[in-house]
């Protein structure tokens, strides 16, 4: 980890969320992340929000079952909107989580943790904090994978055209 925090440009945050959505479909939800995160199952869950590029206000929110495959999601992307919120489901070993990744800072919003069976409130707090950190670990792995892809020479040559084709495919339905 670097000594100083490096603010993430807004466009990189939305690109990461779009890349994550695309990758989750391409890999059919199976991610091999750098250690210590390891292998996780990841899927787009029940909430997506879009905003116009260069703006911070959300202008389209899709909820319900499988919003990633709706006409509205396609229309938002086709209309040039970018992803602001992506709610994802995660499974690591036998633990399942659900969380919204929000904005360029990837704030973790509405994170649902697995049930903890602690005997006392203080144990519950500690257990839940360790589960929270497990999700942070996965997010760190996702960011690492995205950074590798984004900084690679193949990003402009292969990845962007592939995502563009995927978007066109979604438009075509």
């Amino acid at each position: 980890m670097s000594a100083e925090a490096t603010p993430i440009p807004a466009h990189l945050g939305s690109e990461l969320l779009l890349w994550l959505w695309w990758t989750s479909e391409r890999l059919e939800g199976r991610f091999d992340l750098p250690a210590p995160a390891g292998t996780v199952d990841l899927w787009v869950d029940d909430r997506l929000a879009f905003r116009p590029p260069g703006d911070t206000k959300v202008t389209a929110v899709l909820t319900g079952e499988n919003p990633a495959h709706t006409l509205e999601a396609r229309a938002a992307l086709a209309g040039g909107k970018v992803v602001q919120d992506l709610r994802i489901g995660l499974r690591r070993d036998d633990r399942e989580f659900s969380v919204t990744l929000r904005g360029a800072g990837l704030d973790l919003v509405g994170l649902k943790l697995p049930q903890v069976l602690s005997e006392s409130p203080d144990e519950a707090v500690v257990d839940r904090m360790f589960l929270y950190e497990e999700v942070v670990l996965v997010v760190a792995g996702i960011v690492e994978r995205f950074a590798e892809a984004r900084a690679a020479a193949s990003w402009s040559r292969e990845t962007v055209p592939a995502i563009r084709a995927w978007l066109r495919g979604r438009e075509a339905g």
Partner: protein
Amino acid sequence: MGLWKGAVTARRYRVVGQVPQGWREAWRERLDAMAFREPTGTTGKEELEGWVQIHNLLDTSFSRMDRWLYDPFAVFALRVDKKTLPAKLFSATVEKRCEAWCAERGTEKVPAAVKREIKEQLEEEWLARALPRVTLVEVSWNVRDGWALVGTTSEKACDRVRTRFHRTFGLELQPWSPLDFVEDAGTRSSLVASGPSAFGGEA
């Protein structure tokens, strides 16, 4: 935020600064010193803030470490009280009192100074019996690893917590960035320098 149960919404910060030897005792004293204090007299519209235990917002003592220190986590909450008055009802009542003042004196207009006095008196009366709106923001600080969660994504509330945290512990809560997870400095720099990709995004 949901430290105990329910969904967690939080912003993650690094804690920057030197944690002293014997920090447990030091943090206990500082939390107590900056804890929420119930006002002794009538309060106005000013905001009152201070640390409370996460268990109950009326628990403002940190003398028992087992109530807030769950190694390696220190957990507490910032309580902010603010009294507000119902604006429309307040204006209407001021108008009625002004009308009554005019009727008593057989005049048609209330001098500005008198109207101000009527307003101030009514505000004082109402604030004396109004209950505050109370907000709580939980903080969970991993003292060992140097990070903290602030249980909100509101900029204003986060800034308030950061300010009080600094005043209390002399340590800074520095916003966490996803790029902190990119180990390679060269990759980090090239990402920051990169422009938007052309797939209908932020171009």
